[in-house]
Structures are given as structure tokens and as C-alpha cells.
């Protein structure tokens, strides 16, 4: 069994996504992480895209590997707030953060 970076997770797409959706997502990500500015990230995206860009490759991944994308989606669900609105933290959280920052800095 090969355990490696899951291309579905890297691209942030469902295992059942089709060619068009995967390509669209890949192009979005490449626009966000262009190769001239983020060569390593782009390389990872490129590899992930090539690994699942055809039906045969996707089947190979789904059958022969253990995908982590469902687990990733679960984790993302844990991090999801009720909306995209940004909130202000409580004073206690801010105080704790400032103290934590000073405590973990090297004087």
C-alpha cells in the first residue's frame, strides 16, 4: 500500500469530481500560486493534477491508495464557522494570546 500526498486533498476536490471540475480547480490554484512566485507549491499542484487528471488515473488512486481527502473534509468541517464573517475575539483571548506570545519568545 502506498501512502503519499493525496492529490484530491492537495487540489481540494472530491474523489468523485470529474475532469472539468478538477481542471477548473487546478487552474484556480495555479492562479493563486503561480510557478514564478511559488515554484514548490506549483510543482505539488502540478503533480497532484497529473495524478488525477484522467478517469484511469483517478480510478487507480481510488482503488490502490487510501485517500485522506474525506478525513480532510471532516477536519475542514470542524474549522468551519457559521459564515465567512470575521469576528473580534474577547479581551480574555487577546490577553492570553499576548502573554503566550511573550512567554514563548526568546528573551
Amino acid at each position, binding site marked *: *500500500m502506498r501512502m503519499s500526498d493525496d492529490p484530491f486533498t492537495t487540489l*481540494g476536490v472530491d*474523489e468523485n469530481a470529474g475532469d472539468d471540475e478538477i481542471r477548473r480547480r487546478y487552474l484556480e490554484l495555479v492562479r493563486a500560486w503561480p510557478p514564478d512566485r511559488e515554484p514548490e507549491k506549483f510543482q505539488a499542484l502540478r503533480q497532484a493534477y497529473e495524478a488525477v487528471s484522467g*478517469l*484511469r488515473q483517478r*480510478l*487507480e488512486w481510488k*482503488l*490502490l491508495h*487510501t*485517500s*485522506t481527502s*474525506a*478525513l*480532510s*473534509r*471532516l*477536519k*475542514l*468541517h*470542524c*474549522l*468551519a*464557522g*457559521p*459564515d465567512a*464573517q*470575521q*469576528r*473580534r*475575539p*474577547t*479581551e480574555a*483571548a*487577546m*490577553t*492570553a*494570546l*499576548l*502573554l*503566550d*506570545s*511573550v*512567554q*514563548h*519568545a*526568546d*528573551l
Partner: protein
Amino acid sequence: MTKSAMRKAVFAPSPQELSESGAAALRQGRFKDATEIFKQLLRQDPRPEWKQRLADAYAGRARALAEKGMFKEAAIVLENTLAPGGTTREPLLYLSCLIRQNQIQKARRAALAAMATLPAAEAARVAEAAAALSLAAPAPTVVGATPGGSGTWPEQNRAAETALRAWLQGQPADEVDRLISRIPLRSSFGAMRLILKSLITHDAAKAQALLAMIPAASLFAGVRDAAGAALSDAPDLLGHWARLRPAQQQFVAEMRGIPRDRSALLNQIQDAEQRGPAALLSLLVRRGLPLLEEELRAACLNLLPAAPDRMAQFTQRFGPLQPIEHNRIAALSAEARKDWDHAILYWRALASVLERDKAPGSRLAEAVVLRHMADLARTHPDIDEEEEAPEADLVALYLERSLQADPTDLTAMLALLDRYRASDDPKEWYRAAELAVVRFPHNPIVLLHAVDAAVARDAFKKAAGFAQQVLAVDPINLPVRQRMIELQLAHARKQARSGRADLAAKSLEEASAWERSDKPDPSLRIARALVAMPKTADPATADAVHAAVQEAGGSPLGWFRVVLEASLLNWPAKRLQPFHRELQAAYETPPDRATVLALIGLLGQRDLGGTRRAITPALRVFDQYLIGGRHIDWSPAEFLTIAEAMANLRCYPTLHRYATSAVQRDAGNLAARFYQLLAGSGGNREGLNHAEESELFSIMDEAGTRQDFALFNRMQKFALGPAGKAMRRMRKTGKSSLDELDEEDTAELLTALAGEMPSVPAKEIRNMVNHLGRGAAIEMMVSLLSQSSMGEMFSKQQMQQFCTALVEQAMDRRPQPRGRR
């Protein structure tokens, strides 16, 4: 004075001695001892230098305690050095100890006190700590020292506090921005200004750029990281979440509105991940998440191969697995255990389920599984054989099935072609190549496979057709154009040998279409000239041969080409009569290094298209020339090339003379000694006498000692003969140990070996059996063989079998080996 007091006074060390002892304790890091000594000295005489030494001792002791994590004790020790201004001997260490004990106000006061007394670099750092502490625990500020920025410290502090409070209270971004602008960027609160600015900015890239301006060593770095995480997109946040400390996670969760139970669950998941797949699966099955049942099942399903013992938990929660899922999980789980036999069993079951499945994509999935099975069979040759086809090459079998399920899979097709090429089975290779060309008519790799497969079957015309298809795709591929000429030439030779001169001429004409105008092909030119020559000598056409020879490098190499080509075209020697004078001249030219090597290269070219029998007349001519080259001082590499070419062409007498000359030049030349033996025996190990056989094994030993493995392997190939081939084939099929040979393999090997036993003729064996009896004769043979090189290769039981076979063979009761695999 009492006696005791008097004794003490007499033996008490002097202050000077005590001071030296204290200094030594300081140097040696015995700070507690040093503290006691200098305290004692100060009680006698409060000298400033001793006060200084005592402070050094306290500082050293505090550092030692802090290193052990005893911050409270370290701070107490340092307080012994408190100056009237509130600073200690080690202000940074003292501050650090107070912060770690969570004595925030005291730390803040210590930082503010130290700011004015420290050098600029340290003061800036302490000021930043004071700034962070002031914002964390606001209190009236009484210090006016300002390490950086405009305005006084209290003013800067007030501006930062106001801006932070405004942001926390949810005031509009414009208002917060106005307040932020009052914080001097170069002050100790500058980092806070950047953080607040990033938090009210709507442009994510700009916000991250602002945060990136805060150095990693800043006292605000922890706040910066939390702000960065809060502003990042969800996948990035997920990537960072495990690295965030609880206070940072709390800040991010509040900013993004993440419910407390969800962030706690995420922490539990990440913690369980560290403990392994079984722990994670247990957690997920137990906890679950509302509305995410499908995701939860998929996540758990993917964890099952690594935690198969949790299957019951899984089925209890999500119900039984479908056959496809069950077989896949079982196969992946077996692979994780490196249990390849079971893995292939489950993959086979999955392929079978998919074959029957009517869902779209099932056949494609079946092909993928079968290709994976071929990969497994190739990388693990010890996998149990397929029940329904026990004799088959599993790799080829699975690839064939995969291609039946998905005929358009180029990867599987190329893997199959490679497999057949390596298995020395030209018939299957050619069949597969022809099929591949139909399916992938424009793929150059497939087409080149087809060319090679056709050549392996001497189907040169067909091979030329495939090469032409490559050129249709890639017209300027120079190596393929050259190959095209060679193939047409080989076909023409074949036609000429079968008496179809007209077809040969046609093929040569077609070949000339691929010639480069700037680089004529010498073999083609010569072949065309020869084919065009009528059977009766004609000076006009002979001129064409002369011209071709000149183009081929002149005499003597050009004439040797003519001889070789004439042989390949099946010319009788007398037809070369018009050129005898030139050939004679070629013999008279003393051989030189370049010509001999060129000639050897000529004989070793691929697609020669002629059997050894066809080129025998040419070899006779070349021999006369080559013999003269034996005295050239060949380098080891040159000698090996020549010797191997001669051995392949079975030019043993010439090879023997070359090897003998090389041994005369250098008696330590192992390769020359070996080829001398090989040529002397006519290339047949059986032709070696006992002394020569010993010599062969001694050269092998020496080659092994010198780590000349290429020569060693070559000698082994000669020494083992057909038995070696059988053993190599068995190694190829994965039988790594002789002990693991099955009956059939053993029978085959024994037959091969028995056929190679010239030194024990059947008559002698029969005599031994007649004199000693069957059992004792076999025992004696086993004993004799155990002392030979075979003794190292075979177990006693195998020797016993072997000798029994020999005896039975000799007594004409040889068991018939079962069909070859």
C-alpha cells in the same frame, strides 16, 4: 577564649585564601559554594570587589536554576542583586523568569526599570516585552524612557491600548485605522500596529504582507502567527492548526466563529492521528459528526486497511461492506502486512467482482486492478501461481487480462511488450506488438517495439513497414531513417539468398530513398552495386563496385565490406573474381588497429540479416587478415571486444592465436588466459581436459578476487553451460534457492547436468555399479562431486538425486522429465 575558639582561630583560612577559594568556585561553576564564601567575606569586610563577586555568584546560580526550569527559585536568587532602581544583575533572565511564572505586573515593572539601564539593542528587546506585557495587563505607567519612536512611552502605550481596545470592542475599521495611525511604527508597539492593520484590511495578500514585516524574533511573533492563521483560507488554516498553541487556537476560533466543541474535536482527531490509524478510526466511529455521515464513512473506510482489526466496529456503525469495498480493503490490508499471496488473492477477487459489475467504469477499474496485480507479480516473483493457469507467466497473464478489460491502456500495453521482449519469446512479443500497432498506430514507442519484435523473427519487410509508420509521425528522426536503410538492406539480403534478385534490387532501391544526400550508406552502396552486377563479369558494373568501395573508406576495409555483403547476398566465391586483385592487396596490407576494430564492428552490427552460415565465406577471408593483427598491443578493453566478437562468430583458431599472443605479452592477463581456454576447447566446455578445467576455475577465482565481475560472469556462463542457463531461468522465475526447486525444475536441471558429464562416461558408471553395487556407486559419486564446484551449489540430497539420475541414465533407465514449463 575557649579551646575550640582558639583552634578555629588558628586553623581559619585568611581572607586572601577565602577570596581565592571563592574565585575558584566561580570558575568551576560551584555558585552555591561561591555565594557562601563571599557572604562570609563580606561579613568580615564589605569590600566592593567581594560584593561584585557575590553578585556574580548569584547570577551564576540563577542561570543554573533557570536551565533546570526552576524559574521561581532563579528569580528569588536574582532578587538578592536588586539595585535601588529596581534592576537586577541579569535583567533579561530576571524578566524571563517572572514572565514564565506568570508574574505579569512584576515583569512589566522589571522590564520598564531595565529599559533605561541596558545597552540599546537589549533595551529595545526589553521595551518590546514591556509593550506586550502592558497591552496584556494594562496599568499606570510611571517610566518616561522611550527606546524608539516619537512621543513618550506612556503616550505610545496609551495609543496602542486605545487602538487595541477599539478593535476588540468591534468599532468600525475606519475608526480603528485612525487610532492605529497614532502608534509610531518604529516604537516598541510597532508590531502591534502592523497586526491590527492586517486584521482590519480586506485584502488578504496585503494583510499577509503586513504580518510578514514582523520579524520571527519579535515578542509579538506569537500574535502575528495567530493573526496570520485567522486570516488564511480554510485548507491553510488546517495545515497550521496543529502547530498553533492553545491561546493561538482560541484566538483563531473566536475570530472565525468556530464553535468550541468543533475545535476541540479537531484537536482530538489530530491527537488520535499521532497515535495511529486504529485510534483515529475508533475516535471517528465513536464521535461522529452530524450531517457528515458519508464523509465519516469514507474517512473510516480509508483507515480500515491500516487498522483491519477495527472492521467489526466499522460494520456495527456503518453496516456491512459491499463486495468491492471488502476485497479492496482486504487486499490493501494484506499489502500493508506484506502478505503478497493474500493481496493477489483479494485483488483477483475484486477483479472478478468488477468484471461482473454492470456499473459504468467497472471494466476500467478491473483493468487498473489487473495492471496492479501484474506489478505485484513482477516485484514479488514468489507470489503463489494462478490456480487456473499454473504454468503461465503471471505478469504477462495479468497484463493481457488488463488489456482485455481496457484495450486503450498504453501503459499496460508497453509493460506487456517489455515483458515479452525480456522473456525471449519472439512469437508472443511479435503477436503483442502487432496488436499494439493496431491499437496505437501513431505511438513511436509502440512502433519501435514492433520493429524490434519483427527483426527478432527475421521479418525485415514487416519491420521496415513499422519503421515507416514511425517516420510518418516523426519524419526527421535520423536514427529511425538509418534503421530503415538497415532493415531494407536486411530484407534485400534475405530476398537475394532465396534467389529473388529482382525483389532484392527493389528493396535496395527503396532503402536508398532514406539515404542522406550528404552521408551515403557504404553497405547500401556496395549492396546495390553487387546486386546490379550480372553473373558474368562486367567491367562497367565492376566500376560501380569500385566506386562504392571508395565511398566505403577504400582498401582494405571497403573490400572487406564487399566480401561480407557478397556473403550475405549468397554469392559464390568465384563471383568475386573480378575483384581478386584488390582483395589480394587487402591481405597484403599489414593489419592496423583502426581497420581491425572497424572490421570487428562491421561483424557485430545489428540487423545483419544473415545467419552465421551466410557469412562463413566472408569470415574465412577475414581470418586471413585478422590473424596478422594478433601482435598489436591491444588494450584490455580492445582485446575483450575483439575476443568476444570472435567467440560469437566462432572464429576459434584466430581467437586462440590472439589470446596466446596476449598471454605472451602479459601472463597475468586473465581475460586472455580465459579466451585461450575457450578457443582451445572450440567454445565447448566439454572440450577442456582436467588440467584446463582446473585452470578455468583458478582464473575464475582470481577474477573474483580482483572483483572483475564482468569477466567472472562471462567465465561462469562458459563454465556452467546449459545447466547454467537452466539455473538462470529458474532465478528469473523467482526460485532464488536451489532448495526451493520443485520436482520438475530439479529434473530439468539434473537432465541438463547429466548431459554435461563427459568425465564420467556411462560405461565407467556401469562398471562402478557392477563392481560396487548401485547404492555404493551412487555414494561414491556423491562424495566425488561434493569436492567439486558443484558441491557448493547443491545440497547433499540434490547430489544424491543427481547421481541417481546419472546411474539410471547410464543403466538406460533414465526417467523422462516432465514437460518443460
